[in-house]
């Protein structure tokens, strides 16, 4: 049996448990900042998970999606931060 496929098979449930805990915090977070922080951390971990999964499935062309995901979730942070700050500083 291939050592890479066997090891990643045992590592995938750990990633999934972490994603479920992140989603719980992202849904029930008391303030908007908590939710956005949880989504942010979850999405970077999803990007890491996609790279691992492309090796696991042996389809190398799927790796390019991780770059796009890591680039664009940063935009959500900046939008929410700009919205919160502008509301305080006056129109």
């Amino acid at each position: 049996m291939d050592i890479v496929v066997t090891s990643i098979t045992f590592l995938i449930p750990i990633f999934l448990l972490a994603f479920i805990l992140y989603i719980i915090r992202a849904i029930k977070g008391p303030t908007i900042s908590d939710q956005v922080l949880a989504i942010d951390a979850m999405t970077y971990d999803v990007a890491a998970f996609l790279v691992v999964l492309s090796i696991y499935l042996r389809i190398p062309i799927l790796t390019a999606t991780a770059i796009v995901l890591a680039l664009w979730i940063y935009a959500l942070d900046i939008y929410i931060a700009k919205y919160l700050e502008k509301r305080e500083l006056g129109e």
Partner: protein
Amino acid sequence: MTEVLIYIGLALIGLGAVSDLIAAIGMNRFKNFYLRLHAATIGTIWGAFVPIIGASLVAIGYEPLGYYRWFVAGAGFVAALLVLILAPAGSHALARATHRARIVRVEPCIADHLDETMCIKGGSE
């Protein structure tokens, strides 16, 4: 040579998965937004940067991917560099906006020179 690369990469992926789980537990256990920033730091650097580097090292030494394994390695290194740059910048922007908009007060606080009224002296723990 490739065996060593595969073992190092698998160890890094395992370390990343475990620290990812630790960060998720911490995200649920901490009481405050400013405390949850610590868990987000663990989750982004140790939980995303390290496993991507490990996956790139595995891809370099993993023969069944064929000639495209260099593409996986290069895209992985670029994604890891982007995470390393963008994740702290996003967290910092979010924390600064939250503190300026006075949404969350600083709970276990000793001194807050930015805004004294945000500070709760002698927090619960």
